[in-house]
């Protein structure tokens, strides 16, 4: 039975969420290629250098916040429904969707205001040239902060729908283990609830009243600390859904099954525990924070490598098992016997490969003192275009080739484009990201319209600055082509008529080592949440206490236009 026929209501929800996410991806990708051409000086005719930052804000917000959150909401709705075999509570799930959409429109309109002359709306200039980190005291239109808050609150309510579904399932299946996909979704959502408290307090308690003029000052160090309390776990909010795909769907696409259910649960619990008490590693070079707290964040960050390293083992082992089931032999030649011409499989594998590279550059970022070399250089976006920009984004696109037919009942169209698309993305990202990393080693900064100065010139460490610029421009262009190919496939599939029998289905094979082998304590959410909170109190309690000891709004800054 096709998913859309078994669960028509949830399928409609997933379709709506994917649609918003794909529109955000399209606009975000267009903004991306404009930036790549502008900052490398290849073509600066789209926008002025002052408006570059509006485009940059739009790129970050639409891709890192909107594309991701809506796609994840859709994927999670499918995963919970599929593994608990029941429709989601519709009223809750749809209110979440509409809240998030309202927030998205508010934020998008405020950003776009910046390129149409910042008209005054309700007594404030309509603009939000503050980038997706919106560090105070740079001020955006209040609608931008309200929009951001609505997206977050909407995602909380979406999570409530998953939990409600589990509670209903529990009452009908007492004593059974939580199915793996639902376990992964709920563990991710618990991590998300804990970590979004930081940004919610920042926006609701400080930035909204401050941008409306209800309070005069905010403390820039306190607000950015609250942002980064959320700013690192958010990357795991992007990554854990990709892991859900790699653990539960990818082995099946390779022709096999997951190696170990217990280890998958251990990995997700480790993320719940360690994702949040690490935020100070984004503030290694901040004044006003004693070095000792940075050291604690560094050690926690390093241990956060563990679940990802375990994932590398389990995913590769599961895929190898799949290849051997298909008759492959040899130590490495089994790699040849994988379905590289299936876009869902190829995309997930290439995304995983690139994530390995991104993991290693992340280890450099996490290295407290070597971080001096690359902090706020273009190395950093070079890194996260491998992680959120490929590990997440390419996995999302790849799994859409598999999932969208099931939530529509329509066969995938434009297969030829789809088969090549993951490779175009992979090559584009390899070209762009390697050059960004090397340019970062030369000290070239991120977040700038024109990385050239009158007073001095950058010198390449490995390769020349001109060659790096060219690679960034070419890579950025290829990525835009890759995004366009994906969107053409999706548009054609969504607009097509239903007909024929699908070659894919949502049945997930039982793992080689099933949940019966794993200790039941792994499913004890109360225990893990309590430990996670305790670790946060240790990492954040004393520094936050000292920041607010002199008053919540001091040392204070009034809003400053950009």
């Amino acid at each position, binding site marked *: 039975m096709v998913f859309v026929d078994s669960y028509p209501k949830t399928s409609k929800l997933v379709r709506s969420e994917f649609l918003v996410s794909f529109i955000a991806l399209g606009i975000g990708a267009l903004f991306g290629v404009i930036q790549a051409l502008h900052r490398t000086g290849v073509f600066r005719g789209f926008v002025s250098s002052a408006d570059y*930052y509006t485009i940059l804000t739009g790129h970050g917000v639409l891709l890192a916040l909107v594309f991701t959150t809506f796609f994840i909401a859709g994927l999670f709705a499918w995963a919970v429904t599929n593994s608990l075999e029941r429709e989601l509570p519709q009223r809750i799930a749809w209110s979440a969707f509409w809240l998030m959409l309202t927030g998205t429109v508010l934020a998008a309109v405020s950003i776009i205001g910046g390129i149409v002359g910042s008209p005054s709306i309700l007594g404030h200039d309509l603009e939000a040239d503050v980038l997706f980190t919106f560090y105070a005291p740079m001020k955006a239109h209040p609608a931008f902060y309200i929009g951001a808050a609505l997206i977050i609150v909407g995602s909380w309510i979406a999570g409530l729908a998953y939990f409600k579904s589990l509670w209903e399932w529990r009452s009908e299946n007492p004593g059974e283990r939580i199915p793996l996909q639902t376990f992964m979704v709920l563990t991710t959502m618990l991590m998300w609830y804990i970590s979004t408290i930081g940004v919610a307090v920042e926006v609701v308690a400080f930035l909204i009243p401050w941008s409306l003029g209800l309070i005069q000052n905010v403390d820039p160090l306190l607000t950015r600390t609250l942002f980064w309390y959320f700013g690192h776990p958010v990357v795991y909010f992007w990554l854990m859904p990709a892991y859900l795909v790699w653990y539960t769907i990818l082995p099946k696409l390779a022709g096999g099954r997951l190696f170990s259910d217990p280890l998958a649960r251990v990995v997700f619990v480790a993320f719940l525990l360690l994702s949040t008490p690490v935020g100070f590693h984004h503030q290694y070079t901040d004044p006003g924070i004693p070095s000792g707290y940075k050291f604690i964040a560094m050690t926690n960050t390093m241990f956060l490598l563990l679940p990802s390293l375990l994932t590398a083992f389990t995913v590769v082992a599961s895929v190898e098992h799949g290849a051997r089931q298909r008759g492959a032999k040899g130590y490495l030649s089994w790699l040849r016997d994988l379905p590289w011409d299936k876009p869902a499989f190829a995309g997930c594998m290439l995304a995983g490969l690139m994530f390995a590279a991104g993991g290693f550059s992340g280890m450099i970022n996490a290295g407290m003192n070597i971080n001096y070399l690359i902090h706020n250089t273009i190395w950093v976006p070079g890194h996260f275009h491998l992680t959120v920009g490929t590990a997440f984004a390419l996995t999302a696109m790849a799994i859409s080739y598999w999932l969208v037919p099931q939530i529509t009942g329509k066969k995938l169209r434009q297969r030829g484009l789809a088969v090549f698309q993951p490779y175009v993305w992979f090559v584009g990202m390899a070209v762009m990201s390697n050059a960004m990393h090397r340019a970062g080693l030369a000290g070239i900064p991120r*977040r700038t319209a024109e990385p050239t100065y009158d007073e001095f010139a950058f010198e390449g460490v490995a390769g020349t600055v001109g060659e790096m610029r060219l690679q960034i421009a070419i890579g950025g262009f290829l990525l835009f082509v890759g995004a366009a190919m994906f969107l053409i496939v999706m548009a054609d599939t969504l607009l097509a008529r239903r007909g024929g029998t699908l070659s894919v289905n949502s049945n997930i094979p039982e793992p080689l080592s099933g949940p019966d082998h794993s200790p039941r304590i792994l499913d004890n959410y109360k225990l893990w949440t309590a430990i996670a909170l305790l670790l946060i109190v240790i990492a954040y309690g004393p520094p936050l206490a000292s920041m607010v000891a002199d008053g919540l709004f001091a040392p204070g800054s009034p809003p400053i236009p950009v």
Partner: protein
Amino acid sequence: MQVHRFEKVWLGAAILLIVGFIATIAYGSVGVGVGMVGDSGGQISAEAVQNGNTGTQFDDPGVVKEDGQYVVYVVARQFQFSPGTGDTPIRVPAGENVTFRVTSADVVHGFSVVETNINTMVIPGQVSEVSARFNEPGTYGLICHEYCGAAHHTMGGSVEVVPPEEYDMQQENIDQSADDAQAQEEADQ
């Protein structure tokens, strides 16, 4: 819970790698002395920095000698460093310990001397304090590496590191010429 033998080996190797990373970083901090930017710079009122009435050296930023040490006071504001940008490079002697104290008069900025370990955020209300020694004379690039507004990309400058013997001489020359100018002005009046 059954864990495969290969999984155990992999887990052991992963933990070894992590502990190794932490050990090298700890050695870098304690052994080699690559210290982090901390809270040693203290706090300051951003409004007072903007108005030039902090009652500290930030009201007249530049290089001073405090207890025999060179200290550079820098104020960052949209879109300049005082000193640092345009025709006012930061001038320091080679081979001497130099402490930079940097703060912001408006929004969040960055303070990065290209190809060195001097790399810190500049946050309104806080003073960033970093120490360094330039072994090689020459001109180093200075940039604001945090987006600070529409003309952020123009916020660059330089640090001029001069041999210590020349440095003192040039300082005297500057002081001398300043005295001369003042004398001239007085004479004109």
